[in-house]
């Protein structure tokens, strides 16, 4: 499996360039981190891969999954990729889940869409997924509404939903930013563990340098729609760094001592 982004440029209808000539690639089992401040284009890159750019924005360049071009794929075909081969977890788990639908039913959605699973078979898979994301009391949680769960539990549900159809690539867009620090650590450990166990390829987007270096190996640093540095977590922690990366690094270390990364 290879996800290849090549010369990706995104412009608005008014001719503003939001993303300029971004290229990177990630292969099976890879863990890519995309880091940058708000407005750097990191989330836009994720949206472009999913084919879910806001109306009026246009992407040029190439995004290929195993050599198959996604940018020119008809919407119908793209829908078969979304959720099945590439799935996504978002920043705010409370609003990312439908408040008026039980968690179980929401997870059932992609299972029915891509796997044609319904009824008891779907229920079994839903409980299996809730177990996978280490939720307690899974029967009760499956029948709960998102607002009846804690922030951490919600994000676990969102992860279960994204992983429901065993996608090749999981894009996590600031998945821990909206959570308490302690919960943040739990979710990162879970994500780390899930990626290891399922062999899913991870694209992790965040502004938070310590968080990114904790779960990824390859790192892209972005600023104002450009890639300013392509490095590894190892090198980023040990230095030397590009001037902008150094700024991000200084900002992070000023707030908190950098935790050690779990794996090399």
């Amino acid at each position, binding site marked *: 499996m290879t996800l290849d982004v090549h010369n990706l440029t995104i412009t608005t209808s008014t001719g503003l360039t939001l993303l300029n000539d971004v290229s990177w690639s990630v292969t099976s089992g890879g863990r890519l981190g995309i880091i940058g401040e708000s407005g750097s284009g990191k989330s836009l890159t994720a949206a472009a891969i*999913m084919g*879910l750019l806001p*109306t*009026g924005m246009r992407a040029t360049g190439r995004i290929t999954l195993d050599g198959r071009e996604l940018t020119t794929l008809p*919407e119908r075909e793209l*829908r*078969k*990729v*979304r*959720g*099945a081969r590439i*799935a*996504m977890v*978002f920043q*705010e788990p409370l*609003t*990312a*889940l*439908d*408040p*008026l*639908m039980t968690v179980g039913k929401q997870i059932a*959605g*992609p299972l029915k*869409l*891509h796997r044609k699973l319904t009824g008891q078979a779907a229920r079994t898979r839903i409980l299996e997924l809730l177990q996978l994301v280490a939720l307690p009391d899974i029967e009760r949680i499956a029948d709960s*509404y998102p*607002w*009846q769960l804690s922030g951490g539990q919600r994000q676990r549900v*969102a992860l279960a*939903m*994204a992983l*429901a159809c065993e996608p090749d690539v999981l894009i996590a867009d600031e998945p821990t930013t909206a959570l308490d620090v302690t919960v943040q650590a739990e979710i990162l450990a879970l994500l780390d563990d899930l990626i290891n166990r399922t062999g899913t390829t991870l694209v992790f987007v965040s502004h938070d340098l310590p968080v990114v270096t904790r779960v990824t190996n390859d790192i892209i640093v972005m600023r104002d729609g450009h890639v300013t540095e392509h490095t590894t977590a190892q090198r980023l922690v040990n230095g030397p760094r590009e001037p902008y990366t150094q700024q991000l690094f200084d900002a992070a270390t000023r707030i908190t001592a950098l935790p050690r990364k779990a794996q090399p």
Partner: protein
Amino acid sequence: MVRFIALRLAALIASLVLASAVIFYVLRKLPGESAGATLGVGTTVDQLDLLRAELGTDLPVWQQYTSWIASLFDGSTTSFISREPVSELITSKLPITLPLSIAAFVVAVLISIPLGVIAGVYRESVVGVVVSALSQLGLAIPVFWVGLLLVWWFALRERWLPSGGFPRTGWEDPGAAITSLVLPVVTIAIAMSSVMVRYIRSATIDVVQSDYIRTARSLGYSMWGALARHGLRNGAVPVVAILGIELATSLLGAVVVENVFALPGLGTLLLTAVTGRDFPVVQNLVLLLTVVVLVMNFLVELLQRAIDPRLQATSAAGASA
């Protein structure tokens, strides 16, 4: 749930008591007086006093109020002018006003839900802008003017439909009854759907821009698929509220429109009663409209709680606290 309904019923009764007092007091403060309005110019003071004593308007206001309230319970309120029981007057007008406002409401819902959703989903394209502009136009034009325009075109120019009135035989000739209601129904429906389209459009925009629709699309749902799965129920909560208010408003709209189309319904009854200072009729009618509005609000709240379980959770927490 029982507690919720009991609380709401208590509030309903309290509102009705308050509303009845306000209606009664305001009417007494109107310039002009029942006996004078009935007898007209050139009557003697003695005649006036006689009629006042007969109608009970010579009594202190609080006494008039209590006897009115008492008459509500045994249905014995009678018109000052025709001396008929008000309940009979009202029920005789219902076969016109009820079909008129219900049909107008149904037509307005059928027009405004698809238009509002389209205006919301395609808010940045030509279709969405045109629908929004039309609803603004509908809001800006007074109801009676819409009615007059429709009469001018469909009744006077094309002669397809009657310009007003209602068959003397009522619903014995359903065809004639229905044709005489078409233009009034369309008139009210245009005014109502202009309001409703705007609310449905903004509810749709909220849903379309919501994160859970983005999540559903990231899992492989199409825009319309995601809207059907998540949007209908989420969008229904605010829309139900406005539909409830509009259903009650359609009765009020009937007051104006019946006058334009010379339909002998509740609206016409109300207007004649006000000009004749026929207080019992006015009081009972306005109170009836108040009941309808309050009951609609209550039903809307029940419906919203059925749609959104969060509302039950919050009120349960509030009740136990």
